[in-house]
């Protein structure tokens, strides 16, 4: 965006008159509130804000935001959002998608919006299931997920959304979860990033995949399993009793005990959000032996696609005028007067 004017709004200003139609207790409610709480802190302007979504439970989101909204077709939201952004780069575009919408039918578009680096916030609600079509296994479902389409358990290997994003050359990758108090901070960091900002938000589908994230995202008692990353801060969790260090021989991460808060003695890593190698290691950390890496895992901006398009336009049009009559008469022409033709 071109130096947007900051607007005073409250959470209420971002609520529509539409009846919210998610299941009672769905994690989407918490995410909606987190977004409506975050936007006023950013000074966001409802008239310049566009929520674009695909198809699925998550993609009903735009109807509940008092801004401009476009509920499109399954998997293609990144392509629509790219068109919106190219037509008017001043708009603040938020993309809402899910694990099925964004990584299955729309995986191709997700890859390309990330590698092009179109400036927008991409919220991927990951509930590891197809909700709106009544509970089939999704591309992020863990092996063994029982569902109507996988009655004895799914057997295809799941994809890790943040690994996918890094692999597609995303320059901002973050994680949060629906009921986390820290979600607004993560959203704000994504908004501050110039370029495509990818946020995986773990979301509890209470009907078809209830509490699958409880081991790290339960409202109470799972805090020890959360590693909240902050640029320049040591990678500590479990109240500072444990940390993440680098096994320099195996070139992989390890969990270390921290005694008396002396994390330096335990060789705990300091998070550098611009370090792509560490980002890869953090997103790949297996949960269980390791905590769940949350917050801004990677943030290293590079020029946006819109900037490149504007630059190309500037170079391509330099010294040219918009003269339609001259354009139509381009190339080898001749004039006819009477019956004789004379080359021009």
């Amino acid at each position: 965006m071109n130096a947007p004017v900051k607007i005073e709004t409250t959470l209420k200003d971002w609520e529509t008159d539409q009846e919210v139609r998610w299941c009672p207790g769905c994690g989407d409610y918490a995410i909606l509130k987190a977004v409506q709480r975050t936007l006023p802190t950013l000074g966001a302007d409802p008239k310049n804000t566009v929520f674009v979504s695909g198809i699925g439970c998550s993609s009903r989101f735009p109807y509940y935001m008092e801004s401009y909204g476009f509920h499109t077709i399954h998997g293609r939201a990144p392509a629509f959002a790219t068109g919106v952004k190219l037509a008017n780069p001043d708009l603040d575009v938020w993309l809402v998608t899910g694990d099925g919408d964004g990584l299955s039918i729309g995986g191709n578009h997700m890859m390309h919006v990330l590698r092009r680096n179109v400036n927008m916030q991409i919220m991927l609600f990951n509930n590891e299931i197809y909700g709106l079509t009544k509970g089939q296994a999704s591309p992020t479902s863990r092996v063994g997920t029982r569902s109507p389409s996988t009655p004895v358990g799914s057997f295809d290997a799941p994809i890790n959304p943040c690994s996918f994003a890094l692999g597609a050359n995303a320059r901002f990758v973050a994680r949060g979860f629906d009921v986390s108090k820290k979600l607004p901070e993560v959203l704000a960091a994504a908004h501050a990033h110039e370029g495509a900002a990818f946020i995986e938000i773990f979301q509890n589908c209470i009907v078809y995949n209830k509490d699958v994230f409880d081991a790290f995202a339960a409202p109470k008692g799972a805090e020890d399993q959360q590693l909240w990353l902050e640029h320049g801060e040591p990678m500590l969790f479990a109240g500072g009793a444990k940390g993440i260090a680098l096994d320099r021989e195996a070139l992989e991460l390890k969990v270390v005990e921290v005694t008396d808060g002396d994390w330096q003695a335990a060789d705990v890593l300091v998070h550098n959000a611009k370090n792509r190698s560490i980002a890869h290691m953090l997103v790949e950390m297996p949960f269980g032996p390791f905590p769940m890496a949350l917050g801004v895992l990677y943030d290293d901006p590079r020029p946006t696609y819109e900037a490149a398009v504007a630059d190309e336009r500037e170079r391509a049009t330099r010294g040219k005028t918009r003269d339609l009559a001259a354009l139509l008469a381009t190339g080898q022409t001749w004039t006819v007067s009477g019956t004789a033709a004379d080359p021009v």
Partner: protein
Amino acid sequence: MATQTADARPDLSSQDAIVVRFAGDSGDGMQLTGGQFTLSTALAGNDLSTFPDFPAEIRAPQGTLFGVSAFQINFGSRQISTAGDAPDVLVAMNPAALKTNVAALKPGGLIIADTGAFTKRNLDKAEYETNPLVDGSLAKWEVLAFDISERTIEAVKPFGLGNKDALRSKNMWTLGLALWMFDRSREPIHQWLRDKFAKKPEIADANIAALDAGHAYGETAELAGPLRQVSMPPVESAPGLYRTITGAEAVSLGLVAGGQLAELPLFFGGYPITPASAILHHLARLKEFDVTTFQAEDEIAAICAAIGASYAGSLGVTSSSGPGIALKGEAMGLAIMVELPLVIVNSQRGGPSTGLPTKTEQSDLYQAVYGRNGDAPMPVIAARSPADAFEVAIEACRIAVEYMTPVMLLTDGYIANAAEPWKVPDPANYAPFPAVFCDKPNDGDNFLPYKRDAKGARPWVKPGTPGLMHRVGGIEKHELTGNIDYSPANHQRMTELRAAKVSGVAVPPQDVALGDETGELAVVGWGSTYGPIHQAVGRWREKGRKVSHVHVRHIWPLPANLGELLAGFDHVLVPEMNTGQFKTVLRDQLLIDAQSLTKTSGQPFQIAELEAAIGAYFDGIEGNEGGEVPVNKQQLPSPLAENE
């Protein structure tokens, strides 16, 4: 020089039009040769029409029958509306080119062949057991065969090129001979070569030397032998400025003009596909006209980005060919549902599936009119020629913007690639249709995103407009508020409103392209069949038949008077390059007994075959001579036709 002389050689000088076909290996530069010959023909003031016909492979194995690339041009001192049926002159750069093209040559026509390429190896590849240039099998034509390869090498020798590089100029040598034959100026081609090879002046010089050598050969050979110079006086044309134009160029320029007339930035989302890619290429160079081009990751993203751009206030355009259009179907439905302007250009090719990527067909008509889920009406219009594509592209933009609807513009592989002279239009002669954006509440203090105007169009609001925030999407929505509404009465109402808007699109009354407004037979065409139908109908009219040519631009909705017009004819015959799709639409919409005449060989109609079919149809009409009216869906050409 080997020559065979036909008994009755037609005198080309006495003809008011001549058809020349250049044929060679796909690496021989035949399209380039044809293109430059076209330019020189246009500059000489002849009317013309071209037909580039090339294989789907970029460089098929050398010398093979399937690797032959051909370029046909019909030019004359009268109006030309097709690329011509049978060539008068065939330039064959190798045995495969001769074999695949000679059957089309008129009896007594002239074959110019490069003996240097008629080697044992090339004859084998073309499946010739003996050399046709010497075995007498070409007796019904005149043959002028000599070693073009050797003469080219000789001509470019001073430039120090190896034999392989030297032979690349063979096409220019041949072009030089053709320029001499038809008394054309070499200067524009010299200039073109100097521009093209500005960074490699030695290559430009070599090509110019080859061109000049070919030209000089003509002069010398005329003195000594059978080669004669033919002069073709200019055609009588309306005074004005002219250029040549292909359909792909015309569509691109029409879209740019449409954007300017709508006072909107143009956003073009495309994905590479034959034969539609040329539109992306042209528009990518026109950024100064407020054009943004976006090469998307796939066909679906290309249309979705275009819809996104329309949503944000640009005129979204996407373009493809049959298989790509199929992929865009769901997104077209969304554009119909959210009622945003969008132009979809379909350069049709032979199908189904990958089909015939470089050949022409009109078989996506059902797809255009009916090919979406749900009741999803959309205006469909078709261009009849390269130059007409300019007008039709503007018309598509106008309908899209005025009615807030996607519009499909049909061209085909023939129109996209073919060139014809074009009287350069003055943009000032086109009425602007500036887009109107809604920027304030339209219902007291309320804003209703689906409140329609008299034409049935909903308001267009640019995101960024204060106070008018709203949501749109593909789910059925309330008639006025646009909020999600699945209620039975609402869906029925919305279905009706969407249909009524499209059927209410203002379409100019249908005229008769040739002939009277009533008669015995109406030959009804659409798209690129205009030229051959026009000529064939003209020939029967000269013979006194009560036949007229009606050519339909607006396929959906049809012109309101079409039914009444066709009711004035005893019979309706619909030639088209598919198995009878427009015939079905006419039968359905007008309840008339339209009969079909079809061709699905990937080649355009020939005038003669249409003339014969129309004749047979007349013979079959009760009271005329002959048997019954030919059955519906008669396929042309007959599989047993001599040329096949």
